[in-house]
């Protein structure tokens, strides 16, 4: 009798668990303030609307490698993954992400403009659904730069005027471009120069002039911490990190909007999902990347919405109450002199230049 009861109870539990699993959806993102902004702007409203339980996985930094491993094992456990555009391109190339037809699978703008036009040229890969525009830019300590705060990105190479350490990311991307820009190459020619071995050496030589003054970072949180500790005078990082350092933590830091590198972050749906999971992932994407939802995210973090139609809807910060528009990388005042990241170029040259860059670092 007792055994039967136990068995029944176990069966009931298993069935219940089975149902629960069917309503779960795993979304992978970067964690921290960024995941929090997605939860508030997308996940919570979506769960309220559909009853789907969203599980947040914070593995975006290793998403490409993990997706490849899952795909090889034939067991993809993720439903929607947040990646930067260059990773989306690689996932698409490797056949690990599903191709998306923007006009049929994404919501049109409120005025009926099809999604492909609303996102415009930000649809850099067939598999990529853009979400935000962010920039990698410089922050500097206002109390350590003297009476002439830097106005140009080339201040990083000017150790005379701005003595002290500066932090740069431990990879060639962005650094090589800045080095060439500050070595007198015109913005339009940067990638043409960087294509050649001489151009690559030229960029490395320029970086060599400050090699002893650089702290190399590999995690996005490093530069804000180094700035807060006064370890560095200036350093590159994502504009959202600097926003929270300046506005939320009130540190004596200011942002340099010059030659900041525009980049994109967005969603992909892994290839090889079952029809049911694929339909749910598409339904989520349709909801989470519509005009209003993208604008909502900007209430929580200072990244620009990827849709043109979302920009006018950007309001005030949810807790600080300050106007968010002037803090967006897409704001005209900030975007006076931006640098556009060339995805095709880096997809080709990444391995080669990275090998040279790492060899140069180790010298």
């Amino acid at each position, binding site marked *: 009798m007792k055994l039967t009861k136990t068995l029944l109870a176990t069966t009931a539990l298993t069935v219940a668990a089975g149902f629960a699993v069917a309503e779960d959806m795993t979304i992978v993102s970067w964690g921290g303030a960024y995941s929090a902004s997605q939860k508030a702007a997308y996940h919570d409203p979506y769960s309220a609307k559909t009853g789907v339980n969203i599980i947040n996985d914070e593995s975006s*930094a*290793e998403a*490409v*490698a993990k997706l*490849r491993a899952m795909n090889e094992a034939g067991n993809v456990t993720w439903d929607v993954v947040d990646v930067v555009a260059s990773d989306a391109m*690689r996932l*698409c*190339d*490797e*056949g690990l992400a599903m191709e998306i037809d923007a006009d049929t699978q994404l919501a049109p703008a409120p005025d009926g403009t099809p999604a492909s036009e609303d996102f415009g040229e930000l649809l850099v890969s067939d598999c990529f659904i853009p979400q935000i525009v962010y920039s990698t830019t410089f922050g500097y300590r206002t109390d350590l730069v003297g009476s002439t705060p830097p106005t140009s990105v080339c201040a990083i190479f000017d150790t005379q005027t701005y003595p002290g*350490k500066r932090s740069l990311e*431990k990879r060639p991307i962005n650094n090589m471009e800045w080095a060439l820009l500050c070595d007198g190459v015109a913005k339009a020619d940067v990638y043409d120069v960087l294509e050649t071995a001489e151009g690559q*050496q030229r960029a490395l030589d320029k970086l060599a002039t400050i090699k002893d003054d650089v*702290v*190399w970072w*590999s995690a996005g949180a490093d530069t804000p911490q180094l700035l807060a*500790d*006064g*370890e560095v005078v200036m350093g590159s990082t994502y504009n959202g990190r600097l926003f929270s350092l300046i506005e939320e933590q009130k540190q004596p830091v200011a942002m340099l909007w010059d030659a900041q590198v525009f980049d994109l972050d967005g969603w992909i749906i892994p290839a090889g999902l079952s029809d049911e999971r694929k339909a749910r992932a598409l339904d989520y994407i349709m909801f989470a990347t519509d005009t209003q939802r993208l604008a909502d995210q900007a209430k929580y973090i200072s990244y620009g919405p990827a849709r043109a139609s979302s920009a006018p809807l950007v309001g005030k910060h949810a807790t600080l109450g300050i106007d968010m528009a002037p803090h967006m990388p897409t704001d005209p005042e900030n975007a006076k002199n931006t640098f556009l990241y060339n995805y*095709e170029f880096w*997809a*080709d*040259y*990444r*391995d*080669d230049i*990275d*090998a*040279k860059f*790492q*060899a*140069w*670092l*180790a010298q």
Partner: protein
Amino acid sequence: MSDSTHTGPMLAADGTTLKSSLNRALRRQKLRALMLIAPLLIFVLVTFIAPIADMLFRSVENQIVSDTLPRTTQMLGDWDADAADIPAPQVFEALYVDMFIATERKLHTRLGSRLNYELTGVSSLFRKSGRKVEDMGEVYQDQFEDLDKFWKKGANLNALFGAPDWQAAQAAWDTSDKKAQPKFKLRSGLETVLPQASEAFDVYARFTQGEDGKNLSKAKPWALIYSALYNDLVAQPAGLAALDAPGADELRAAAARVGDFDTVDFTAAFKKIDKDWVSQDVWRVIKTYSPRFTNGYFLNSIDMKKTADGPQMRAENEQLYIKLFIRTLFMSLVITGSCILLGYPVAWILANLPAKTANLLMILVLLPFWTSLLVRTSAWKVMLQQQGVINDTLVWLGLVADDSRLALINNQTGTIIAMTHILLPFMILPLFSVMKTIPPSYLRAAKSLGATNWTAFWRVYFPQSVPGIGAGSILVFILSIGYYITPEIVGGTTGTFISNRIAYHISSSLNWGLAAALGAILLAVVLGLYWAYDRIVGIDNVKLGG
């Protein structure tokens, strides 16, 4: 032996020799013992050895090239990579067929990223070519369709190429709602008349029904089939006149006209996509990496390059890995040495204190051991940085000037300090357990026989503690050789290890082959050192306790 007269083998009670009888009994025991450990053995094999072996195997695996471009790599066999000319037009036609199929199956970009590790630019070359290769042969399709509307319909081609029994099955399936689509079967005898077109159609049909999961009756045939058909018909096959199939008349009519068709120069067409296709570099790389197995990854991981003319050293400014291997070994040795220097006195004190105090101190040794690795490493960051605790204290004491603070982090010093701290318990624990077993009376005896403190320690105590040093050193050295989180956080550019590059290639560049080759070399180095240690010190001389 001396007084025994019995010279034959000793016998057991049942008459067999004692030796074999004993062996049998032992074998049974061994088998039983093996059965007992079998679950664990299988578990270890399946979850530990097999994945590692699989991962290491990737360091030589290279099927992707010949699997994705089977016809091209085969044709390339005759091409002389040293010659000044690019491959023959037939190779470009084979490339068209391979690329077309690979593009449909979405495999071409995967191969592009694989070959991009060897030659920069192949990735976008393949991506670009994939987009355009579909239109390349459309000239033939258009001409067939202009000739006769018959060629426009996929159903007509199905009727021509499909075996009659398959057609019947497909028609029956089409109107029902059964799950599995009947597998396409080629009309028998057709492959002798239309060899290329039959092959192309077969690939198309199998892909459409299988990977693509679409209904073949409603699919639109590939342009590839028409270019293959053109090739077959232009040869005016002998069996065509006698062919009896739906569409045979249209085929014969087409055969009479194909002589006037516009043709496609595939070499020019590929050149139009990108002039890299007519450069020898791309073809050399494809030829060099055609074999199913390659030593290219291993050459890359010792700063060499696999070229058509054999292995060559890389340029000075691209050499990295040998330097990193040497640095990893050197720094691991330094870390092991500093662990011995710091750990030995601590273990000595612990072993010679009364148990109550020793236990308390032991907890202090173990406490950091129980703290997260990341927390400890980050704590070192706060301690060591230029505006950090240590530098602040030194400046306050006046030992260091404010404008010349010590660089203790983001270099080798930082890695050595942080890793010595993290790995110290691995040295102290084996030392402690070995020292616990050395009777204090030995030292007293030495001293009573007139030895000085130093002689007593060096000649009597120290030799007995060597097994502990050996065990601790092996643990610390092998652990530190594979460390990567700590060097990544505090190592800057001069304090990173080879493992940091392995991690980069696994998670960032996706060059798993190279990562596997680096890992295999690292494993071989560790095993080699272990072997050398065994030869010099003797592995029996290692004790973890008792």
